[in-house]
Every structure is written in C-alpha cells, then in structure tokens.
C-alpha cells in the first residue's frame, strides 16, 4: 500500500494521509486521516517529517496492519459505498472501470466518468451534475452511473 500526504480537497493548507491501492481498473484511496487514531497519525506525521517512510515499514512503525486498515475502511461509509459499487459491477449492473474510466453508451451518447474525480464527459465534452444529497464518493458514482443508464435526460444541461 502506497502512502501519500495530500492536501485535503477544498482546504489547501491542511495536509492529510491517504493510502493508494490498485483496485483493478481504478485506484482505491483510503483516507487514513479518517480511520486511524490521533496517536497513530501523529507517529505517521513524525515519520514523514523525518523522511523515514520506506515501503510498507510505516505500518510496523505506527503499529497497524494492512488487513486492519482495509477492515476499518470497508466498515466506514466510504468503504461500504465502494463495496456496494463492486457488487453492482460484479453483477453487471454497472460497467467495470478501466484505466480509471467508466464508459456508458446511453440514448446515442457516450458518457465517460473518471472514477477518482467523478468528472463527467458527455460525447467528450466535460459536463457537470448535482446530487440532491451529499453522498460518499462511490455512492455518488453509483447514482451517476444508474442515472446515465436509466434516466440520462436528467443530465441534460439546464
């Protein structure tokens, strides 16, 4: 699991830790800052400051295992949403992502969604959308895919 220190989206001065994992067709981003205890995050901060991050050693240093991180993640709203997304992909209800993209053809148009950013392209033109509820990332992706498949006219520019 690759660890990264990133700026919290929308808060350019706040740095947080995430793990990035290849999930087959897209990258899984695990928000460590939401899952680990404060003392573990402080240890991680020290390791980063001292540039002591090598391979997976950081997990031993802060006393956490990969399976624990994954279990915490898949019990969180974000992880549960990803689990549901994978279930829908497996049952063929949502197309499988490839190279971080989900491509859906519906009503004579080609829709592309970037899995990590949720940017939407309709016939290669970037388009925007709004959701009535502030859903976790993968729940929003599910909602967007199923809207494209079953009710694409809702995504027409108003």
């Amino acid at each position: 699991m690759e660890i990264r220190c990133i700026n919290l989206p929308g808060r350019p001065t706040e740095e947080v830790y995430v793990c990035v994992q290849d999930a087959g067709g897209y990258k899984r981003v695990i928000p460590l800052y939401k899952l680990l205890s404060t003392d573990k995050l402080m240890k991680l901060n020290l390791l980063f400051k001292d540039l002591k991050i090598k391979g997976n050693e950081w997990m031993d240093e802060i006393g956490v295992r990969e399976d624990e991180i994954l279990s915490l993640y898949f019990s969180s709203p974000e992880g549960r949403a990803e689990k549901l997304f994978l279930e829908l992909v497996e049952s063929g209800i949502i197309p499988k992502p490839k190279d971080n993209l989900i491509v859906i053809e519906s009503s004579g148009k080609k829709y592309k969604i970037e899995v990590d950013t949720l940017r939407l392209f309709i016939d290669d033109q970037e388009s925007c959308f709004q959701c009535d509820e502030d859903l976790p990332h993968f729940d929003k992706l599910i909602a967007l895919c199923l809207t494209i498949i079953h009710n694409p006219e809702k995504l027409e520019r108003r």
Partner: protein
Amino acid sequence: MVKLRRLTSGGHVEVEVPLPTAIEELLNHLTRGGIAVNQEGKNIGLEDLGEVKDSDKILLIPAIRGG
C-alpha cells in the same frame, strides 16, 4: 419482505420492509425524482410498482441533475 437500500449522505442504509411499505416508500421516492433499480438492474418506474415482488432487493438512488 423487500430489501430497500437507500443511498444517503451518511452512507447507504439497508432495511427490510413488508411489500406494502416498500411500495409506499418507492412511490414517495419516485415522485421526488429519484430512481429505483432492482437486483437485476431493471429500472422501476411508477408504472412498474405493481410488479414489485416480496423477495426483491431494490436500490433507491437520489435525484441527480445536469448542471
């Protein structure tokens, strides 16, 4: 019992409800502009409410609009 999975801001929630309650929930959801999809990926519209079965697993998706 019908299994309803609703996508909400705190993460999706799953409840099992009797068929008449499920129909009522679906009616409310669809009239608010939401989408409902069953376990086979079939879209359930207002006109399909009579076809909902007791063993169905239905995903309730909030309305999404183009910007």
